[in-house]
Each structure stands twice: as C-alpha cells, then as structure tokens.
C-alpha cells in the first residue's frame, strides 16, 4: 500500500479478457480516491508479466481467460506479493467453480452479474485487511 497525503491508496490489478468489461471496472474503481488500478491484463501470461513488474495489493481476476482459469494465478501472485488479496469474478458460479476457487485460496468470490459497486466495496474491504 502507498501513502499519498493522508490517504492510503489500494493498488489494484484487473485481469479479464473482455476488454470493455475491464475498462468499465477500471473506470469505476479509479473514481474512488482511495483505490487505483495500477495494471490490467487480458490473459494469464500477460498477468504474470504485470505481477512481476508492478505488483498489487488486490487482484481482481475473471475466471475464464483464454489461456486458463483466473484462480491459476493465485499461487504465483502470493509468491511475489505475499500480502496481496484476491477477488474472483465469475460469470458461472457453479459448485465446481466455487470449490476450485476456494481450494486455490481466493479471499472473495463475486458474481460477474452483480453491481460494480459491490466490486468496489469488496476491493476496499480486502485492501484494508
């Protein structure tokens, strides 16, 4: 976490291959003074590069990516940024997906069909934790 003046800013990474969705979430997150999107990626491969170079406090990961599932990133992320938190967004929250996400060590799971305001709230909570 970085300090700018009196406000602690939570650094956020967004990983989603749907570029429009990602841009929208980034816009909503960046409206908040205490949150900042520091990197975006559209695939696991891209995300790994961004983690290595930029890092983050909270990673928001879509489950379905062109080269694998979002939860595959968690272990690698925790190695490089041990304190980081993970929020998974998924368009299908079936039992198998939930179990897989939990097993991989995600901190929070949200339905992709929810309100982006919930995503903002979850990021803030995870960033404070």
């Amino acid at each position: 976490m970085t300090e700018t003046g009196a406000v602690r800013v939570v650094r956020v990474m967004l990983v989603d291959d749907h570029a429009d969705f990602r841009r929208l979430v980034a816009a909503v997150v960046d409206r908040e003074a205490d949150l900042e999107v520091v990197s975006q990626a559209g695939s696991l491969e891209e995300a790994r590069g961004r983690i290595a170079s930029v890092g983050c406090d909270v990673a928001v990961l879509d489950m379905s990516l062109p080269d694998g599932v979002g939860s595959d990133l968690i272990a690698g992320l925790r190695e490089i940024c041990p304190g980081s938190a993970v929020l998974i967004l998924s368009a299908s929250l079936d039992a198998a997906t939930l179990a897989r996400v939990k097993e991989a060590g995600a901190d929070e799971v949200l339905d992709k069909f929810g309100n982006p305001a919930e995503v903002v709230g979850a990021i803030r909570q995870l960033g404070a934790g």
Partner: protein
Amino acid sequence: MGAHGDDLVGKRVEAALGARARQQVLVAELGLKALANDDLRSLMDEAVVRVARTLGVEHAKIVEVLPGGEELLLRAGVGWREGLVGRAKEDAGCGSQAGYTLLSDEPVVADDVRAEARFRPSPLLVEHGVVSSVTVVIPGHLGSYGVLGAHTSKRRVFSEDDVNFLQAVANVLAAAIERERSEEAVGEIREAERARVARDLHDGALQDLAYGLAEVHVAEMYLGNDDPGSGAAALGRASSALRRVSKGLRATVNDLRLGEERDRSLPRLVESLVERMRRMDPDRDIRLEVQEGFPSGLAGDAGAEVLRVVGEALTNVRRHSGARNVRVSLGLEGEDLVAEVSDDGRGFGPETAPGIGRSSMRERAEALEGILEVESGPDEGTRVLLRVPVGDAWRDALRGETGTHGEGR
C-alpha cells in the same frame, strides 16, 4: 441307377439340404437378434455357441484385433479352458491361424493344423488338442474387426458350405459391430458439439451480457449522481452490448439447426462463422480466403460437416493459441476440397494430448472419407488442414447444377 441307389442319393441330398437349411435358419435368427438387441457381447456369446452346435465342433471363438494390430484377443468363445475368454491372446501374422486369416483376407481351412506350412498353430489351439479348423475374417469398415473360428480335435474336412455358413455368421457380427462403433462415434461427436456450444455461449453471449448489465448499473449510478450525460453514454454502451448478445445467441441457434446450413453455400457459411469469431474476438485478425471460382451451390450435409471442422479449429485458436493472426482458406485441389485454418500462436508439442475437439475433427474427416492434418510445434503456430474427396453428386450440388442436396458421403 436302381431304385435302391436313387433312394440313397435322395437321402444324402436331403441330409445335406437339411444341414444347409439349418445353417441358413441360424444365420437368419442371429441376424434378427442383431437387429433387435444392441448388446454386442450377448450376440457374440450366442454366435459362438450356435456355431459350435451347428458345425458339430467342440470349440468356437471370436478374436478381436487389438490396437496396434500385433495381437488378437479371445473376445468370445465356447469349449476353451475356463478363464481364457477375455484374456487369451493369439499372435497376428503367421503365428496363428487367425492371424494368417487376416493376412490372406479370406477363409482358411486347415485339415490338420499340426501339419500346416502356411502358419504355426497358436498355443491356444495346441493346448486344446485342435486338429481341424476353419476361420473367416469378421470384416470392418476401417480394417477388419477380427476372426471367427470353429475348431475340433477330431480330424475333419470342412466343406464349402461350412465355410460359407461361418462367413455368413461373421458378416452378421460385422454389421452389429459396425453399428455399435458408429453409434459410439456419433455419441462422441455430439458430446464434443455440446461442449463447444456451451463454451461459445459462455465466452460470447454470457460475457457480453455481464458487461451490458454492469454498464446499466453504472448508468444508474451516474443518473443518481445527477450526471445524465455520463448515464446516457453508459446506457448507449449497454445497448450495443445487448445487441451483440442477441447476435451471438441467434448465431448459436443457427448453429444448432443443421438444416438451415445445408441450404446455404459453403463459402457463405464459412464467412458467417468467421464473422462470428471476429465479433467474439475483436483483437485477433482473422483473414478469410476463398479460392476464386469456388462453387457457390448448396453446401449439403457434407458441407455442414466441413463447416463444423473449421468451427472446431477456430474455437481451438480462440481458446488456446493466443494468436494475433489467423488465416482461413477454402479451395478445390483436383478432386479434393481443401479447408485450412492456420495461426501464428503458441502452438503445441507432440506431448500435448489431443482434446475432444481434435478427435471430433478427425472423426468428421473420416466420416467424409477425408483426412485431417494437424501441424504444430511450440511457438510455431498451428495449422489444421482438412482434405475431403468431392464425389460427383456433391460436386454437382456445390456448383448448383442440381436442385437436390449434395451427398458427398
């Protein structure tokens, strides 16, 4: 010839005719059973029992060619030591009569297997003291299935009628086996198809719908904050996302209705498929090249299958390749229709197991009596090439020279 002689000949003829009639009845009964019953195992079990009884031998067997073609497995049998059926194997090739039968691709009659010059009797026959023996091929569409055999420890000369009878039983078995195999293949293709449609819906319409809904939420937020300009912009983006959803769903519905595809030309079908992929994947450059003068008649059933292969290849590109550039081409080379999908993505090495998508492409290619080539290497991109012989009927249909649908298979 006196009355007595006539009588004797008559009796012999009658006996011979009686035996042939019994054999024919049995073949017909087995055929009916094969039609009525879809359990191949019980049909095989019944066939060996009936063959042994009808020919009056102690042993009968069905051996199946195992993958690799090196060995034959005793699939069903009667008269063999307990525990051998399902386990015992014979060599393919000249190490057994069954193997030799497959090599020569015709019935093999051995009056005394111990004195044979053409093949060595298998340990299975030796162990059971078999002397005389007859074997026939159980044919199959993609190579023989195996061999049906009748064996006895008494010396005997099997007649031509015996051989014909055995071959008729083998043909009944072959038809049942063929049916089971094609049902399996159809089941696999359907499963792959369902999985592909589910993936397409998930990656396309469902993601766009999540995005559209998110824009609506954001619009609500702007409107609540008294920012109608931003709210209207968000709603505009939401409505174009929803339009994409409806197009995607309509395309999927069309995809599920094979009938509609048959009534359009193959280039147009491939074009709309490529168009759909471009919408799902705006960052990838997908180029379509249709050979000049490619026939613009109806695609027909065979064309719909070609389309499925191209669709499966493009789905693989989208999901696995990470490619920037994709090229789809359609053309005629001599007697063949050639469809190709190549990309500059990450490719895969020989250690990568083929997924269900690749095997369904291969099965479709085989159903069209064509071939599928997949070339790839790590970081070398992937090239999928389908080559299908175009029959006369299909060619005429493709050219629009007949009003009927093409056959091509």
